[in-house]
């Protein structure tokens, strides 16, 4: 094995410190006994207890989850449809413009997206609440889904769909029975991406949320403006834990699948 030079070691330490030091400090202070965020006064889990009593945080968390599930599901359906048309539709009038337009929200400043949605909702007299946040989140996360799915579709062997048609499928059946199962991993990761984006969005949500519905990021942000409380540290720690578990589980599943596939292919090579 190659020896680890001091240069590599330093780069690694610095890099990781840069990425994770803030989070580690946050996690440590979430177990602080003291009410003061910056003074350590011994280990305690009491802030987790008070957090569970805090109705406004729990309500906001519930709203966030509802919004994230609804908006990422709608975004996945629309984004997949959009990607399919762009990749498979062949050359139709305005294809270039259309594909440019579907990716534009990726680079659009969130403030502008938020503001324009707000104006639209006011214009058509839509009361702001969960429904409007879902619409707004669908709007901006749909193009992320579309990017992920279309990159998978580009490498998808088109003759698979033709084979399905050839064997008697209608175009819809070919999509349902052949294309969708094969691109499912991309669709699922598109959904997860949309879900995460919706979970931590603050800017667009603050434009489109109403008094009846507040998401967790908005709630945390407004709480912090009155001063950081250990409760928020505890809440953040829980969120970090959930995300970490999610990421680790996903990578274990991916790793296992690829190992299983490798084994299969080796077995096939042996019997060949």
């Amino acid at each position, binding site marked *: 094995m190659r020896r680890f030079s001091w240069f590599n070691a330093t780069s690694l330490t610095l890099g990781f410190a840069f990425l994770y030091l803030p989070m580690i400090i946050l996690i440590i202070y979430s177990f602080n006994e003291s009410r003061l965020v910056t003074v350590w006064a011994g280990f305690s889990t009491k802030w987790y207890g008070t957090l569970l009593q805090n109705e406004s945080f729990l309500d906001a968390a519930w709203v966030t989850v509802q919004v994230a599930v609804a908006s990422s599901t709608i975004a996945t359906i629309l984004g997949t449809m959009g990607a399919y048309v762009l990749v498979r539709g062949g050359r139709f009038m305005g294809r270039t413009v259309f594909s440019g337009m579907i990716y534009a929200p990726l680079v659009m400043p969130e403030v502008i997206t938020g503001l324009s949605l707000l104006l639209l909702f006011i214009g058509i007299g839509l009361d702001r609440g969960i429904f409007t946040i879902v619409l707004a989140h669908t709007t901006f996360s749909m193009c992320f889904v579309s990017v992920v799915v279309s990159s998978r579709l580009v490498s998808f062997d088109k*003759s*698979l769909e*033709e084979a399905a048609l*050839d*064997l*008697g499928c*209608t175009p819809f059946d070919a999509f349902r029975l052949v294309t969708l199962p094969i691109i499912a991993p991309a669709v699922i990761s598109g959904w997860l991406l949309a879900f995460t984006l919706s979970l931590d969005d603050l800017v667009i949500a603050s434009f489109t949320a109403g008094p009846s519905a507040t998401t967790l990021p908005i709630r945390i942000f407004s709480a912090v403006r009155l001063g950081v409380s250990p409760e928020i540290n505890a809440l953040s720690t829980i969120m970090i834990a959930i995300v970490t578990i999610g990421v680790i589980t996903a990578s274990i599943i991916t790793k296992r699948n690829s190992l299983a596939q490798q084994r*299969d*292919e080796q077995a096939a090579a042996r019997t*060949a």
Partner: protein
Amino acid sequence: MAQTVFAPWDDPQAKPLIQFRNVTKRFGDFTAIENLTQDIYEREFFSLLGPSGCGKTTLMRMLAGFENVTEGQILIAGQDMANVPPNKRAVNMMFQSYALFPHLSVWENIAFGLKREGKPKAEIDARVDEMLRLTRLVKFAKRKPHQISGGQRQRVALARSLAKAPKLLLLDEPLGALDKKLRQDTQFELMDIQEKTGTTFVIVTHDQEEAMTVSSRVAVMDEGRIIQVATPAQIYEAPNCVYVADFIGDVNIIDGVATADGDGYRIAWAEGQESFFAKTANSFSAGQRCHIAIRPEKVAISAERPDDMANAVEGQIIDIAYLGNISTYHVKLTNGQMIKAQAANTRRLSRRTFTWEDRVWLSWTDTAAVILES
């Protein structure tokens, strides 16, 4: 025992299964198929042979319904195929990439088309089992496509496209992905299956050896046109132009000027050289420019001038390609023309008669060569 020769194309009573009528296909400015008319008969094993870009795949995709015809008509069993989508045609296709569904097992891949027809389960089971037996895949029924070898995948693709018992099976470079040995075995297997099932096969290939082996008739294509359609033997022995002669197998082409002489023509080919003589059914006017096409294996090589051959010419061996069973001699004639001659290596290498730089005589009979128009 006399066997009836399978040749429906010579029978004026026979009804063709596929009719191309003045078919033209354009992609934008590019003309892929130009005014093509051709009949293909039931139970034929018909090859479309040509270099890449000659339109053979386009022709096949039009039969499958993946491409529309720009002008003209395609009829299958007398029915005009315009506006009939691929899923409504009694035609199945075996794809070059096999296009096996990676998320389904071998069994499910083969059953896929049958399930779309909504057949009862028992019937589907029986048919899939029959297909698995036919293609010797029973052991692999539960495997996924990535768990089997290339040759097995090829057989799954064949089984899947045959499962619905189509009137017509299209095969797009079916053996392209297999290595040479496996390809040869599979060619015979394909012929066997074609005979057993009585299906009409149309195969696209750029491999002339493959086309010669499997086909009842071969269509040689170039730039969107069919140049010649004939049985493999006719294509090889009596090509109708230099392109076909050159595309199929190895050939020597000698340019010359024809003069009628008895039942053949004398062809003057070089200043101060004795002219060649060849019999032909084609007719040429006196002084018409033409080509003599002669296969290397029909050119004999000897140390002395043979007395009994209609054509003989002297030259020097420049190169010898030793292929094991045969050797190809590259002989330079006095005017600089190179001629290839093949001889079977019936003796051991150490006792070979000719070597580099030897002066030799090349000779062939009056029926060995074909005279082609310029």
